[in-house]
C-alpha cells in the first residue's frame, strides 16, 4: 500500500499539484483572511475523521530530529525574537516549571505526530457541533467549535491548544484560534507570544490531508508566518505513546535559577551558520532573508567571507 498522490477524482485533486507551492500558500493566506469574513455552513463537505500521521519530506531536520542550535532560517522573526533567541539556553528545560511544558498549537503540528480527528454531531439535526482532535505526542486534546459560539473574553485563561472556531469554506475547513499560551516556534529558542493567533486550513484530497497555518504574532513576528504540513490517513489505529511527565529536580541547582545567556555571550548562536557555511546575517535575517530576492545578498556575503 502506498500513500502517494491523491486518488484520481479525489476531492480537490483536479488542477492542483498536491505538493504545496508558495503561490498556493499565498492564495490560501488571502483565502483564510477572507474566509473569516464570509458566512459558512455547519454542514461538512468532506469527512476529516480518522487517524492521521505526518509525512516529513519537508523540513525533516527541523521537524523530526530537531533543529541545530542557531537555526533561525525561514522565520519572519523581529528584533525582539532575535534577542530572545540569543539569550535562550536549552538547559532551561531542566527548570522544574519548564520540564513538562508541551508544544503549543502552532508548534505541535511541526513535530513528529499522529492525531485522531472526529466529529461531534447534534443528534437532533446532524449539524456538526465540533471537531475533536487527540494529538498523540503529548496526549493533547483540542476542540474546534463549529456551532458559532464566540471566543472567550480577553480576561479568560490561555491554554497550549487555545480556543478554536471553524467553518467550512467550500471543501476547506478554516479554523481560527486565539487564547494560546506562550511557547516557541522552534526548539532553538525562537519564541511565540501569548498574543499569537492562527488561521488553519484543512484540505483533504483522498487519503492526504494538507494542513496550512498562517500565524500572526504581534510580539515576535514581523509578518505572518505561513507553514504547511502533509498528513496521511492511517488504515490502522495510531501508535501514540503515553506522556506521563513528572517534574523533578534532575540536576543540583537553585530551583529558582533560570539558565540564560547575557547579550553577546551565547556560544552556540552561530552553530547552524558554521555547520552549513551560511552567513550569520542571512541565518538571523528574518523576513528579509526568507524570499528569493535575498539570494544575491547571500552570494555577496559569502563572497565577502571568502575574501
Amino acid at each position, binding site marked *: 500500500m502506498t500513500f502517494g498522490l491523491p486518488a484520481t477524482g479525489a476531492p480537490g485533486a483536479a488542477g492542483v499539484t498536491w505538493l504545496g507551492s508558495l503561490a498556493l500558500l499565498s492564495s490560501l493566506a488571502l483565502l483564510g483572511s477572507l474566509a473569516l469574513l464570509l458566512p459558512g455552513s455547519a454542514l461538512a463537505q468532506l469527512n476529516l475523521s480518522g487517524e492521521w500521521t505526518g509525512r516529513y519530506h519537508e523540513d525533516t531536520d527541523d521537524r523530526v530530529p530537531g533543529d541545530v542550535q542557531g537555526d533561525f532560517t525561514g522565520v519572519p522573526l523581529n528584533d525582539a525574537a532575535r*534577542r*530572545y533567541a540569543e539569550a535562550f539556553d536549552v538547559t532551561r528545560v531542566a527548570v522544574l*516549571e519548564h520540564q513538562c511544558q508541551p508544544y503549543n498549537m502552532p508548534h505541535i503540528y511541526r513535530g513528529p505526530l499522529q492525531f485522531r480527528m472526529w466529529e461531534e454531531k447534534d443528534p437532533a439535526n446532524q449539524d456538526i457541533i465540533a471537531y475533536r482532535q487527540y494529538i498523540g505526542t503529548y496526549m493533547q486534546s483540542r476542540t474546534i467549535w463549529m456551532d458559532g459560539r464566540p471566543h472567550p473574553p*480577553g480576561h479568560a*485563561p*490561555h491554554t497550549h491548544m487555545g480556543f478554536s472556531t471553524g467553518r467550512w469554506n467550500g471543501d476547506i475547513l478554516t479554523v481560527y484560534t486565539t487564547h494560546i*499560551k506562550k511557547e516557541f516556534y522552534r526548539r532553538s529558542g525562537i519564541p511565540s*507570544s501569548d498574543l499569537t493567533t492562527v488561521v488553519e486550513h484543512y484540505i483533504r484530497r483522498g487519503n492526504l490531508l494538507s494542513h496550512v497555518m498562517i500565524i500572526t504574532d504581534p510580539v515576535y513576528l514581523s509578518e505572518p508566518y505561513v507553514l504547511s504540513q502533509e498528513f496521511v490517513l492511517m488504515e490502522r489505529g495510531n501508535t501514540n505513546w503515553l506522556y506521563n511527565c513528572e517534574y523533578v529536580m534532575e540536576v543540583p541547582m537553585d530551583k529558582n535559577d533560570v539558565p540564560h545567556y547575557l547579550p553577546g555571550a551565547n556560544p552556540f548562536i552561530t552553530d547552524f551558520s558554521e555547520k552549513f557555511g551560511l552567513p550569520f546575517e542571512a541565518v538571523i535575517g528574518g523576513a528579509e532573508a526568507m524570499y528569493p530576492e535575498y539570494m544575491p545578498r547571500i552570494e555577496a556575503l559569502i563572497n565577502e567571507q571568502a575574501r
Partner: protein
Amino acid sequence: MRRSRLIAAGIAAGIAASIVALPAAAQSRIESYHVKGNVWLLAGAASNVAVQIGDDGVLVVDTGGRESQAAVLEAVRELSDKPIRWIINTHAHADHTSGNETLSQAGITVNGNPAAIVAHENVLGRMAQEERPVSEWPLNTFFESQRDFYFNGEAIFLYHIPSAHTDGDILVYFRGSDVLVTGDLFVTTHFPVVDLDAGGGIDGFIAGLNKALEITVPAFLQEGGTYVIPGHGRIGDEADVVSYRDMALFVRDRVRHMIEAGMSLDEVLAAKPSLDYDPRYANDEWTTEMFVESVYRSLRD
C-alpha cells in the same frame, strides 16, 4: 542627573496614571468571570477584583478605582446577596483600594461593623501617609510574614512579600478553590512596576514571583491547576507566572551585569536590556525606560 530626575518624574506619573486614571470606557462595564471553586474575577475596574462567595458571605480582594466603585458593588451583588464580610487589599495603590469605603460600608461583620478591611500594616501606613480618607483604611492589619483564616469552607492564606511592588504586598491564596490572587506582583499587561518610593525593589519582586510559583501547582501538561488572578490583565496559571518571572529575572541579571561593567543609566537604556519583551509589556503608562530605570535604581541604590 537631569535625565534621571525626568524619568523619575515619569515613573511617578506613570504609577499615578496606573493608580488613578483609566479611560472612561474601561470603567463603564464590569464583567464577572467564574475562575474556579468559590472565586470569581470582576474585570473592567481600574484593577482586577477577586470575589469569594459562599454560605458565610462575601469576601472581596481589592476594590478597584474610585470611578468603578459603584459598578463593582453592583457586580458583587449580582454574584451573591450574602453580606460582604471581608475586604483584603493586596497593596496600597489607589487603583486597588479606592472602592474600600463603598464596599466596606455596604457590608457588615458579624458584630455589626462595616466589612473589615485586611492588609499588611505597611498598607495602612502608606494610606495614612497619603492622607487617604480614614474610611478607606485597612484597620485589620498584620505584621507577620503570613496570616490565615477560614471562610466559606476553605482556608485563606495571606503571604507578605517584602520590598517587591511596594513594601506592603501580599499574595492571597484560596486553598480550597485553588486560586491565587497576586495584586500587582503579577500582571499580564505591563512590565513589573517597581515602586521604589513605596518601598519596592526588583529582587523582592522576583522573590514574590518565586513565592507564587511555590504555591501554584499545574495540572497535566503544565496548564490549569492553580489559577492566578493578576493585578491587571487576564487570568493565568503557573506557566504564565513562570514566563513573567523569567522575564523579570533576565532583565534584572542583564542590568546588574551592566552596572558591574560600569555602565551609566543612559548606557544601560541604550543597550535595551528588555528588548525581547518590549513589544509585549511596554506601554504608554509604564514605558520600557521607566521599567529599566526602576530596575537600575533598585540594584544600584
